[in-house]
C-alpha cells in the first residue's frame, strides 16, 4: 500500500518498536458489518480475507487521511487555503478499501472531494498541502487547487469540478482500456447528488451497450450539498438505478466490505461490463468549508454516525480484538501521524508560489510559438512554446 511507504521519508526513527514491527501476512477472516444487498446479480460473501499487515495499514492510512482533512480545515480557516475545499473525513474507508482491491493500472476518477483518493493512489502529504495552498510543489504545481489533483502514472485521473462530468469521462477511460485490450478497469466515482445527472445515464447506457469495464461508484453520503437524498431523488436506491446494469449496496464505513465489493466489481466488469456500487457512507464536515453542515442535518445524527459507524474506530476495534497492537500503540501511531502531517504542512508552507511566468505554461501541449496576452496586452504578453 503506497501510502504507508510514502510517508516513511518524513519519519524520524522512534524508539518504540511498534512501527518497525513487521506484521504477519497470515490470513485473518473478518465479516462485513452487514451482508451485501444486490440488484440483478448474486452478492459476494460477507466473509473477507485480510492479514494483520493489511489491517494495520488500513488503520495507519485512514488515520493519515483523517488527520490530513482536519489539518486542511484549520489551514482553510487560517486563510492559507482559498476558494473551495471539500473534505472527506468519514468517507476514508471507501478510498482505502478500493485501493486494497485494485492495482495502479486500474483507473480511478472522481469529483472534487479528491484529497484522500489522491493520497490512496500514491500522492504525498506535501504535494497535497502545497497544492491546497497554491504552491509550486503541489501536485498540479499550484495551478489546479483543491478540486484538481491528478496522478496519471498511478491511474488517478482527478479531480473534477463539474458535478457528474467525471462519470462519462470515467466510461471513456474504460473505453480506452478495452480498446487497448488492457485487463484493467475504471472506477468512476460520484455522489448521491450527481446520481441524478443525465450524462451519467447516457454514459451508463453506452458502457452497457459496449461492455466497457466501468464500475460506477456512488459515494452516497446522503446529502447533495444541503439537499437530503430523499428530497432530490424519487428513487434513492442508487444501486438499483442502473436498471439492466447490476448493482451492489455496500456499507461504505467498513473498509473490508468496500474491498470485497471492489474486488467483486472488478471481476464482474472485466467479464460482463458495467456494474454500480453504492457505498453507504457519511461525511462529518459540511459539503465544503463554507457549509457548516448543520442547517440541514441534526448534530445528533453526525455524532451518532461517529459513535456507531466511524471507519477508523471499526478498524481500531478489530485490531484490538485480534491482539495485533495495544491501545497505547495505536494512540502512539496516531500521534506520530499527527507529527508527520504537521511536518508536511511546514514543508509545504516553505514551497514558493508559482513564478509569474508560469501563468502561461501548459495552456497547450504544443503552442506553435503563438502569442498570448495578460490583462493589459501591451504590458504582459508571452509566447506559447
Amino acid at each position, binding site marked *: 500500500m503506497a501510502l504507508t511507504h510514502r510517508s516513511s521519508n518524513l519519519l524520524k526513527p522512534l524508539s518504540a518498536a511498534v512501527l518497525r514491527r513487521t506484521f504477519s501476512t497470515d490470513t485473518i477472516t473478518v465479516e462485513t458489518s452487514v451482508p451485501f444487498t444486490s440488484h440483478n446479480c448474486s452478492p459476494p460473501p460477507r466473509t473477507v480475507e485480510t492479514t494483520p499487515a493489511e489491517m494495520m495499514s488500513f488503520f495507519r492510512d485512514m488515520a493519515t487521511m483523517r488527520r490530513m482533512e482536519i489539518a486542511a480545515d484549520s489551514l482553510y480557516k487560517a486563510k492559507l487555503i482559498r476558494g473551495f475545499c471539500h473534505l472527506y473525513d468519514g468517507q476514508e474507508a471507501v478510498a482505502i478499501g478500493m485501493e486494497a482491491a485494485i492495482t495502479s493500472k486500474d483507473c480511478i476518477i472522481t469529483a472534487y472531494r479528491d484529497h484522500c483518493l489522491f493520497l490512496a493512489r500514491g500522492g504525498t502529504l506535501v504535494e497535497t498541502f502545497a497544492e491546497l495552498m497554491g504552491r509550486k510543489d503541489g501536485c498540479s504545481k499550484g495551478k489546479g487547487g483543491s478540486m484538481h489533483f491528478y496522478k496519471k502514472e498511478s491511474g488517478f*485521473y482527478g479531480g473534477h469540478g463539474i458535478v457528474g462530468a467525471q462519470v462519462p*469521462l470515467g*466510461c471513456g477511460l474504460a473505453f480506452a482500456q478495452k480498446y487497448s485490450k488492457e485487463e484493467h478497469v475504471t472506477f468512476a466515482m460520484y455522489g448521491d447528488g450527481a446520481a441524478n445527472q443525465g450524462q451519467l445515464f*447516457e454514459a451508463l447506457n453506452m458502457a452497457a451497450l459496449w461492455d466497457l469495464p466501468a464500475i460506477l461508484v456512488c459515494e452516497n453520503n446522503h446529502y447533495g450539498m444541503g439537499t437530503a437524498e430523499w428530497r432530490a431523488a424519487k428513487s434513492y436506491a442508487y444501486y438499483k438505478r442502473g436498471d439492466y446494469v447490476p448493482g451492489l449496496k455496500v456499507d461504505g464505513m467498513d473498509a473490508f466490505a468496500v474491498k470485497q465489493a471492489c474486488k467483486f466489481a472488478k471481476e464482474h466488469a472485466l467479464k460482463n461490463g458495467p456494474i454500480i456500487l453504492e457505498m453507504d457512507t457519511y461525511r462529518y464536515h459540511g459539503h465544503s468549508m463554507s457549509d457548516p453542515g448543520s442547517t440541514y442535518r441534526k448534530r445528533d445524527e453526525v455524532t451518532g454516525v461517529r459513535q456507531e459507524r466511524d471507519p477508523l474506530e471499526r478498524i481500531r476495534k478489530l485490531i484490538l480484538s485480534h491482539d495485533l497492537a495495544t491501545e497505547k500503540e495505536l494512540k502512539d501511531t496516531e500521534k506520530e501521524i499527527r507529527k508527520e502531517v504537521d511536518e508536511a504542512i511546514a514543508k509545504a508552507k516553505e514551497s514558493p508560489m508559482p513564478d509569474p511566468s508560469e501563468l502561461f*505554461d501548459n495552456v497547450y501541449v504544443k503552442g506553435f510559438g503563438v502569442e498570448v496576452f495578460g490583462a493589459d496586452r501591451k504590458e504582459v504578453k508571452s509566447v506559447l512554446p
Partner: protein
Amino acid sequence: MLGIVRGRIARGGVNASSLQKIRNQSLIYASSRSYSSASKEMTVRDALNSALDEEMSADPKVFVMGEEVGEYQGAYKISKGLLEKYGPERVVDTPITEAGFAGIGVGAAYHGLRPVVEFMTFNFSMQAIDHIINSAAKSNYMSAGQISVPIVFRGPNGAAAGVGAQHSQCYAAWFGACPGLKVLAPYSSEDARGLLKAAIRDPDPVVFLENELLYGESFPISAEVLDSSFCLPIGKAKIEREGKDVTITAFSKMVGYALKAAEILAKEGISAEVINLRSIRPLDRSTINASVRKTNRLITVEEGFPQHGVGAEICACVVEESFEYLDAPVERIAGADVPMPYAANLERMAVPQIEDIVRAAKRACYRSVPMAATA
C-alpha cells in the same frame, strides 16, 4: 459516380448486400478518380474522408465516434467506407447522447487514445459543451501538463439551407474565445485535408468547424496535397488572393463569397486581398496585420452573429497593432443579429451576401453609394 452511390444510400436502407455493392463501387471510384481528368479535383467531402482514412491507417490509436458514422456511412457521408475498412471498434456508432459520448471521447483521450468525435452539426455540441471546455480545453492547464487531451471535435458548423434557427448557428466565436482549444475552419479541399490531418496529429483538443454546403464543392488539388504525409500548419492563415487596396478576412464558406466579391471589385478598379483565416484559434494576427499595413483598409466577413464575433476580435487586434496604418474604419460583415429565419427571402437577409462584401469594401475605399438614413 459518387452521386449514384450517395443516392443509393439515401434512397434505400443499407443492408449487407447493398453495402458490399457500395463498397465495391466506391473502391472503383476511388482508384479511378485521381487519373480520370487532366486537372485533379476533389470535393471537400472526399478530402475529409481521405484525411480520416489516412490518419486512421497511420495511427491505431485514432478512432471515430459519433451518430451514424458507421453503418449509415456518416450523416453527410464524411466517414463513408471507414466502418468496412477499420471495423466497429474504431468506427463507433453512438446513441443520440452528445453529453455522454463527448465525455467518453475526452476520457478516452485522457488515457492516450486519439478520438475524432463527430457532432452531426455543431448546434448539438451545446449539449456537450461542458466536456469540450471544462473537461478537454482546461485539463492540460489545471493538471500542469499531466493530462493532455489529443481529441478532435468535428462536424458541420454555421448555416445550411432552410434548416431554421436551431440548426444554423456558427460557433467559431464561442469556441475561439477559449484558451486551451484550437479552432480550425477549412474552406477548400486542400484546407480540409491538411487541417484535419494536422488536427488529428495535434496533442491538444481541436474544434474543427466544417460547412455542410461546402461538402459537395470541388476544388483543384495538387499531388502534394494528395500525399498521405500532407499537413497544414495550425495557426497560419492563407492569402487566397493578393491585392493592394483593401484586405478582406473570411473563413469557411465566406472565403468563396469574398473571392467572388474581389472579382467584382477588381472590375471597378479596387484590388482586394482575400485572407482565408483557416485557424480561428490561434488567430494569425501577423498575417492579418501585415496585410492591413499594406492595404490600409480592412473588411472582416463571417457568417455568425455579429456581437462579440470573430470580426470583433480581428478589428480589435488591428486597432491595437496597426492603428496608424488604417485609412478607414474597420468594416464588419456578419450574419444578421437575429435567430435564423426559415422563409427564403428572410434567410437570405440573415446571412452575408456577396453584394454586402462589395459594398463594405467600397465604403472602406471611400467609393460607396450614399448610406441609407438610419432611424
